[in-house]
């Protein structure tokens, strides 16, 4: 087994699946010769040729749209959007076409496209290379939305996504592309969508997060531990479908719920989780449900480390909920 970081894992997983399945093609800006601006597709063009690892002109709508048309003809395209911040020229194709084609055609035309895109802050990318807008896509029936927080999960979730017969937005937390390595098995394994991962068991508070924030949360959980607060940390891994059962089971035990995400608070996915809990397990709650989130502003540059919830801000909220 190799020690791989997250972006290496993505690369390796794409390579393995392309070896297995000749219908898998990759398309996007700079994915071929250049190997992707984050090197996620490095070496793939050399191995699979430029017909299969396709450097496209600069047009996200056509990247996603062409992927749809490829899928309809039987290919399994993996489209890369260079940064999630630049996915919006394709938004019409995603919400009006990709997500709805199966439904509107009465099931005749499924669109099994995977869109991979690096997202999130913490890389000094500023206003337009940092955003976390998963909530737009979660609110779009017909799409699945996935984000790994570890190399191991990245492989398992990506393989699952590439084998779905539905479109999947596969969000890669670029902040942790290279920050952690772990053993990633070489064999074929999948991680199912809709099953959360228990990161830390705990008894006082349930903390739900995903993507890069899981690691910030781990730091916060450690800080809380020092203060005698035992936090159960859940990594959702897939945001749609999301593992509500895992959340509710935990909240029934702890009686307290905090959700932490990078995205802006208002209309963020944290609201959905809070709403689900306040509808279903309110009687178990010993404290308000609280969210830790990015501020409700566009993404800044100079102050991103304050904008992005640091462990201390999560800890603050944990304290409030614990000592309510």
């Amino acid at each position, binding site marked *: 087994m190799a020690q791989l970081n997250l972006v290496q894992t993505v690369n390796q997983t794409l390579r393995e699946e392309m070896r297995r399945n000749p219908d898998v*093609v990759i398309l996007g800006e700079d994915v071929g010769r250049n190997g992707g601006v984050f090197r996620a597709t490095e070496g793939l063009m050399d191995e699979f040729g430029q*017909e*299969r690892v*396709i450097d*496209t*002109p600069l*047009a996200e*709508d*056509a990247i*996603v*749209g*062409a*992927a*749809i*048309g*490829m*899928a*309809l*003809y*039987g*290919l399994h*395209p993996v489209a890369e959007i260079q940064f999630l911040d630049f996915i919006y*020229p394709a938004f*019409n*194709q995603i919400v*009006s*076409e990709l997500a*709805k*084609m*199966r*439904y*509107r*055609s*009465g*099931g*005749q*035309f*499924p669109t099994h496209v995977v869109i991979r895109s690096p997202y999130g802050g913490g890389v000094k990318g500023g206003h337009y290379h940092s955003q976390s807008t998963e909530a737009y896509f979660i609110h779009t*029936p*017909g799409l*699945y939305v996935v984000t790994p927080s570890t190399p191991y999960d990245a492989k398992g979730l990506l393989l699952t996504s590439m084998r*779905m*017969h*539905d479109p999947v937005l596969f969000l890669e937390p670029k902040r942790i592309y290279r920050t952690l390595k772990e053993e990633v098995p070489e064999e074929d394994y999948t991680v199912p969508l*809709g099953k959360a991962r228990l990161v830390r068991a705990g008894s006082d508070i349930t903390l739900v997060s995903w993507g890069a924030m899981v690691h910030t949360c781990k730091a916060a959980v450690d800080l809380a531990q020092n203060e005698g607060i035992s936090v159960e940390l859940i990594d959702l891994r897939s945001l*749609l*479908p999301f593992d*509500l*059962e895992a959340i509710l089971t935990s909240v029934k035990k702890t009686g307290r719920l905090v959700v932490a995400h990078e995205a802006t608070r208002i209309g963020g996915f944290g609201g959905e989780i809070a709403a689900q809990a306040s509808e279903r397990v309110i009687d178990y709650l010993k404290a308000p449900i609280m969210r830790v989130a990015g501020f409700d502003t566009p993404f800044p540059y100079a102050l991103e480390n304050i904008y992005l919830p640091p462990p201390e801000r999560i800890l603050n909220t944990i304290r409030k909920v614990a000592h309510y």
Partner: protein
Amino acid sequence: MEMLSILRADGEYDPKLEPDLSDEDLVKMYRHLILVRKFNERGMALQRQGRIGFFIDSTGQEACQIGAAYALNSNDWVYPTYRDVGVCFLRGVPMKVIFDQLYANAQDYMKGRQLGVHWGYKEKNIVTIGSPIATQLVHAVGTAYAVKYKNHRVVTLTFFGDGATSQGEFHTALNFAGVFKLPIVFFCENNQYAISLPVRRQTASENIAMKAWSYGFEGTQVDGNDILAVYKAAKDTIDKARSGGGPTLIEGVTYRMGGHSTADDPSKYRNQSEVEMWKKRDPILRFRLYLMKKGLLSEQEDRKMQQEMENEVNETAKEAEKVAPPALSTMFSDVYEEMPWHLKEELDDLMKEGT
């Protein structure tokens, strides 16, 4: 740019340009022109009578649909628009399937999820139409890419209107097609209007066909009311695409005789005199004269055929009207291959609570 024209409005034609079509072909084409016209008449009437909710008429544009689609092989792929019902008929979509969609009934292939005129039929490689304008152009490009990748000898044909040429996807689709030299034909039915906007306000370009040059391939303009010209242009460019010659843009110059849809009142924005002028250029009229001149059709055969088509249309409409509405559960299926927990829950709740 010279507009390809073979068959003039008065039924005269240029024998040197006549495409290679058998008598059978010609009569089959005519039948389908009539079928589309009759279907449109019925569709409009059904909507006016309140029997269906919505309809889009394509009267005047029959030659574009039938002429272009006639040049396809059965394993080719088509991305039509809501105005191209003739493409469906020609490729063999059963008429009942067409009416089931208009009635959005339990037998509708689209399961009652879309407004009328949004057909689709996988068996015949006709991709289900959506409402957003121009989105299908990039899908067609993707399909053509996949075809080329798989080394199949399949051509993708996509239709769209003059209004669609203003959308970003017109540009990005044609650009991709040019860069990857794909086996695709882009067919613009320039019917002079996008709802109320006349084409001279849609673009300052001299014509639409020449827009292809920006993408490194050829554009060709044809009289869209001349089915022989449409067929010839389509056949030539489809053959070219099939043999690796890359994409072509065809502009069929035609006219939308009716309103944009049953929700539109064209008297708000255009003169009847213009409509009258185009009436004289009717695509069916001139093809009828042509067939008669060639001895392929008599007045009597024509009347008979028209009656047959009308009967078929009317009877099929009645059949479709009898079918029940779709089941509640159809609202929840096909969102995904398998229903995730939250949809199951919503469906269960609905069944349990009855509301």
